[in-house]
């Protein structure tokens, strides 16, 4: 078993910096396309859940439709989970992923 050596100050700083970088990476709420959900329903759901104005909700819906998925919100893990749950409760295909 290797002996444990105390970390140098520079090592500690590097480690803390790496941890901070990891914890600060935001979580993305991703909505996926499906072939049946009416476009207007997706817009209503985005407006209701995020409070987005109609043009932003429409733009995100079109991104889902044309690109197969869209990041509709980014931020801390707990809030991302909360939004994902609300979108799934509203019947949309939704997951969360940490920003790369």
């Amino acid at each position, binding site marked *: 078993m290797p002996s444990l050596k105390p970390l140098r100050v520079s090592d500690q700083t590097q480690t803390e910096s790496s941890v901070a970088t990891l914890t600060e990476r935001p979580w993305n709420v991703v909505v996926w396309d499906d*072939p*049946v959900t009416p476009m207007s329903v997706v*817009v*209503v759901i985005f407006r*209701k859940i995020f409070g987005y104005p109609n043009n932003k909700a429409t733009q995100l819906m079109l991104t889902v439709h044309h690109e197969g998925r869209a990041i509709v919100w980014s931020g801390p893990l707990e809030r991302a*989970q909360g939004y994902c*749950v609300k979108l799934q*409760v509203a*019947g949309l295909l939704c997951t969360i*992923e940490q920003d790369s």
Partner: protein
Amino acid sequence: MAGRLFVRRRDGRIEVRLNDAGREIAREAFGHVLAAETDPTHEWHASLNGPIDPSHDVDDPLATFNRQHEMTSNVELAVATLGEEFLNDAEAWAWLCTLQIALRATITAKGILTSDRLEETDDTTRDYIQTLQAFLFSLADAM
């Protein structure tokens, strides 16, 4: 079914213009969602319990609990208001969510994941999907 099925009135409520056949379809859809929530053998059950974070084997239990709680609240409110002539905003939202879950669970259970696959599906399933889409389209328009 011609004409608007849901109409926003001046007092803010949403009028439900479904006939008996339409309400029966909604009743059936809501009933399936309610049953699928608690019955792991129901063909819609898996669709209602999709992953939140697919990079992990198990989701956060609190998030899973919240999802089940919110879904149950919506479907129970939708069932309770099935016979109503007018819906308030919360009731209309519960209808929209539950109808949308029924629509997505139908395509998931039947493996209809692309537009091509939707074209190939049988007439009964396609009619059912188009009916739910018509309900949702009109309800979203009224909201």
